[in-house]
């Protein structure tokens, strides 16, 4: 039974982070996410969709787990792919629709933008929760060549590709663990 449970957790992590591990000291956040995942393996079609998302969006940047932003943010992003942070990231119509649906389905159920004065965030790093989590990180650790910006999750979060952001998995380039 334990093996079965482990397997389904692994499948969920592969789903692109339906379950995001929060820092070990933040059980509240941890449980909030835990409460909104459904323990069933991905269908073949879902796997294809995740692969498409990772291929298309991950070609230029880290393929952020959709759970980091609410649907309104993803909709805003998907409407402006012709000028996506200054680059043309347009997709063919069918793939655009598939990815938009994937993001909408897996988006955060929480607003995540409280305190932003009604602004709809398109950068995860603009959201109050992100800022709170990263407030102690010195700027030079983020701007160094190996990281470049807060957009590059995997530069420090070694398991981020599988949706895990535990504090003990952090390795900051030219610095090391974050204790």
């Amino acid at each position, binding site marked *: 039974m334990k093996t079965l449970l482990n397997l389904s957790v692994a499948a969920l992590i592969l789903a692109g982070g339906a379950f995001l591990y929060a820092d070990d000291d933040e059980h509240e956040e941890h449980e909030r996410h835990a409460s909104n995942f459904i323990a069933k393996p991905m269908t073949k079609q879902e796997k294809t969709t995740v692969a498409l998302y990772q291929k298309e969006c991950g*070609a*230029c*940047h*880290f393929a952020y787990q959709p759970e980091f932003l609410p649907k309104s943010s993803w909709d805003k992003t998907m409407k402006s792919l012709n000028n996506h942070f*200054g*680059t043309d990231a*347009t997709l*063919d119509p069918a793939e655009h629709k598939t990815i938009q649906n994937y993001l909408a389905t897996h988006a955060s159920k929480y607003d995540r933008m409280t305190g932003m004065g009604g602004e709809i965030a398109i950068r995860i790093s603009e959201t109050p929760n992100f800022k709170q989590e990263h407030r102690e990180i010195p700027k030079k650790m983020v701007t160094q060549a190996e*990281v470049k910006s807060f957009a*590059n999750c995997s530069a420090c979060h070694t398991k981020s590709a599988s949706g895990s952001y535990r504090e003990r998995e952090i390795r900051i380039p030219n610095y090391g663990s974050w204790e």
Partner: protein
Amino acid sequence: MKYLALALLFSTSLMAASPEVVQYMNELSKTAKVENSSFDGFDAARGKEIFTSTHTGKQGKPMACTSCHSTNLSSSGKNTLTGKVIDPLSPRANPQRLTSAKEVKKWLKRNFMDVYAREGSAQEKGDVLTYIMKN
């Protein structure tokens, strides 16, 4: 026999691209002829100029294809904005390149916009593809 030799020559020169990409280039060639009556085939040297020259890009800043892809098509490049590694463009170094017409069309559209702030013409696209195939 002569035709066979010709066909062989033709296929050898285009070996660096898959049949669907070759077909796409044939379509580009037809369009280029319509758009420019003096068009006389794609040219790798023109493609190199398109690929390596600097222009005012979509962000209003100087930009070249080589800003991300580097000047050596056989080596990896790096997205200047995100730092993400880009696999080599040369089909010799990276057999996945020039295998899907859909991928080729998508990236030519996007990257002409990024570097030239406009879409490329059929001739320009064909010239760049020819340059990539020969490197």
